[in-house]
């Protein structure tokens, strides 16, 4: 029986990194302020003391340089884990992500794979300045060659991060900073993998399926509990990986309930809720008993924080969405 530690999600990030760095000398972390400072969210706290400046590396303030040089490190046989301080600052590195990180295997005919994990905290709700609250996972899920992981619990975070580091292909690892410290969970001290591409049923239910991921999993579960008191039996499916999505789990759940709600804080237009809705139309139309509801961020820039609580889906909006689906 393995020892466990009671960790927050951000501590699980740190623990996942430390555990894998201990096991594999090829793993290096790089990014802005991740060394002596331990990361602006402390996701790499103490790692430089533990592994040295050659493996936990402070970089210049240059997102394209961070992603691009990490690609070079990976080509050279290392397993880099670059951090972008906030996902809203990934855009200067976007060309590197899309033109190279995603396509290096294809372009090199699999001579080179890029076993790299691009970490970034994403999402709103922490009262941050402009450009610090984006949830733009579809930029990356739209790109062939990438995998996109968005954990929602400390246990999954460590296991998914270890899987991502061991994955031969590049992974964009978006961490829900809203819940970095929201709760704790027992996390094994040893290394373990949570498979990429597998969803988790967080709450079983018979009446309606709610598909969500990352920080939105909590308000969704909260809404499910509230509605349970009214006799609505809600199933909550946490995608955990948004690309490649666990389509089988999504379709299976929907076949059971015939009703679906998708919840994400990313904007609606072109968002994953549309993709999931189309999937259900294609694969399970005859099971459908109600229109599929989308509870998402609005198609506006994430507002400054005096208004961000209105922007982010919360338990009240999720409840309404679920009611729409079950009362149709």
């Amino acid at each position, binding site marked *: 029986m393995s020892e466990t530690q009671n960790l927050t999600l951000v501590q699980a990030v740190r623990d996942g990194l430390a555990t894998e760095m201990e096991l594999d000398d090829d793993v290096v972390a790089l990014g802005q302020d991740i060394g002596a400072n331990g990361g602006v969210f402390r996701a790499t706290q103490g790692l430089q003391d533990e592994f040295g400046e050659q493996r936990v590396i402070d970089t210049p303030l240059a997102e394209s*340089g961070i992603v*691009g040089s990490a690609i*070079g490190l990976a080509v050279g046989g*290392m397993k880099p884990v670059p951090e972008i301080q906030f996902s809203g600052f990934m855009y200067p590195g976007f060309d590197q992500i899309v033109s190279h990180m995603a396509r290096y*295997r294809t372009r090199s*005919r699999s001579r080179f794979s890029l076993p790299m994990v691009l970490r970034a905290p994403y999402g709103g709700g922490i009262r941050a300045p402009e450009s610090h609250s984006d949830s733009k996972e579809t930029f990356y899920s739209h790109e062939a060659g990438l995998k996109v992981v968005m954990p929602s619990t400390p246990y999954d975070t460590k296991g998914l991060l270890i899987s991502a580091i061991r994955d031969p292909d590049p992974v964009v690892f978006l961490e829900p900073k809203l819940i970095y410290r929201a709760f704790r969970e027992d996390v094994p001290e040893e290394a373990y993998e949570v498979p990429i591409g597998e969803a988790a049923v967080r709450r079983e239910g018979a009446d309606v399926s709610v598909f969500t991921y990352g920080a939105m999993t909590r308000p969704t579960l909260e809404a499910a509990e509230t509605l349970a008191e009214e006799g609505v039996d809600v199933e909550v499916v946490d995608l955990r990986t948004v690309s490649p*999505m666990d389509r089988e789990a999504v379709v299976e759940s929907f076949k059971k309930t015939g009703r679906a709600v998708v919840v994400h804080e990313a904007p609606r237009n072109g968002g994953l809720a549309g993709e999931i809705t189309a999937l259900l139309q294609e694969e399970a139309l005859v099971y459908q008993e109600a229109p599929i509801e989308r509870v998402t961020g609005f198609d506006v820039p994430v507002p400054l924080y005096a208004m961000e609580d209105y922007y982010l889906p919360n338990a009240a909006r999720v409840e309404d969405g679920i009611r729409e689906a079950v009362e149709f």
Partner: protein
Amino acid sequence: MSTIQRDPEDRVQVLDEDGNLVGEPPDLDEETLVDIYRDMKLARHFDERAVSLQRQGRMGTYPPLSGQEGAQIGSAYALADDDWMVPSYREHGAAVVRGLPLKQTLLYWMGYEAGNDVPADANILPVAVPIASQIPHAAGLAWSWKLQGNEDTAGICYFGDGATSEGDFHEGMNFAGVYDVPMVFFCNNNQWAISVPRERQTASETLAQKAHAYGFEGVQVDGMDPLAVYKVTQDALEKARNPDEDQPRPTMIEAVQYRFGAHTTADDPTVYRDEEEVERWKAKDPIPRLEAYLRSEGILDDDAVAEIEETIERQVDDAIDAAESEPRPEPEEMFEHVYADLPPELRDQRDEFVATVDRHGKDAFLEEE
């Protein structure tokens, strides 16, 4: 190692325009000198045939290199076997020196993914089309050698004059300086970024001087003088491997040269530059220049030149035949090499498409060419 030469007339040179020795030649045996000459001739002949293939509709858009053989071949010869080359998309000549068969280059520009198959022992990174985007990779690759304690390997990263205006040039060069990596940043300044002349790219007097801002040495070389290019590149690689105390490992080389032809076959340079300018630069052509030198040294004569011409013509003929005999890829090949393991959704897309193609026949999909 030379310092920056601010006077463009005073840049590092070994041969003048007529092939007379004006500087200390590099220490190369006769056989290697002839090989350099042969590979420059091969690159030129290949280039002319490739442009012609495009004009005949036998190949897609192609970026010509004529005029740039001195920089490409001279620098590639300076690399050691284990060194790496990080190309942009015009380095067909340098790639041949590094072991990439001509057939591969033809296939790539003929639109075949198989053109990207690089022999396992050829230390070349894939072609990078977005300008300057390969420069951070080069910095990272050289950094990996350093982190792994490999002190024997160095590399060369090619890019053009236009690339020096890109953010990735700055970020890659900056990383290289900060982490002091064994990489030579080789700028093929061919004077034109499609239609934008060198003086519009930057107000800097030289491109080489930009290296100073990153804390390492920059040097200008006559890029149409293969021996000068070889010498400067070899010095830079040697410094990358074995720097003196407090001497930074990276170097930026600005190889001043000219592209005789278009940016690509889709471009018409007569719209933006004078024929007079082209003729002026053609007087510096690296091939007759080295040939004149080798003849004056008694290393080359008419018979040898004729033999070389015959050999390279046959070599290019054979490569074209081989490339044109390549079977068209099967549709499912599109789905290969995207992930190590194909995700279920992609497997479904592939299988459905293969079934669709089978149902309609390939001719229903393939446009007349």
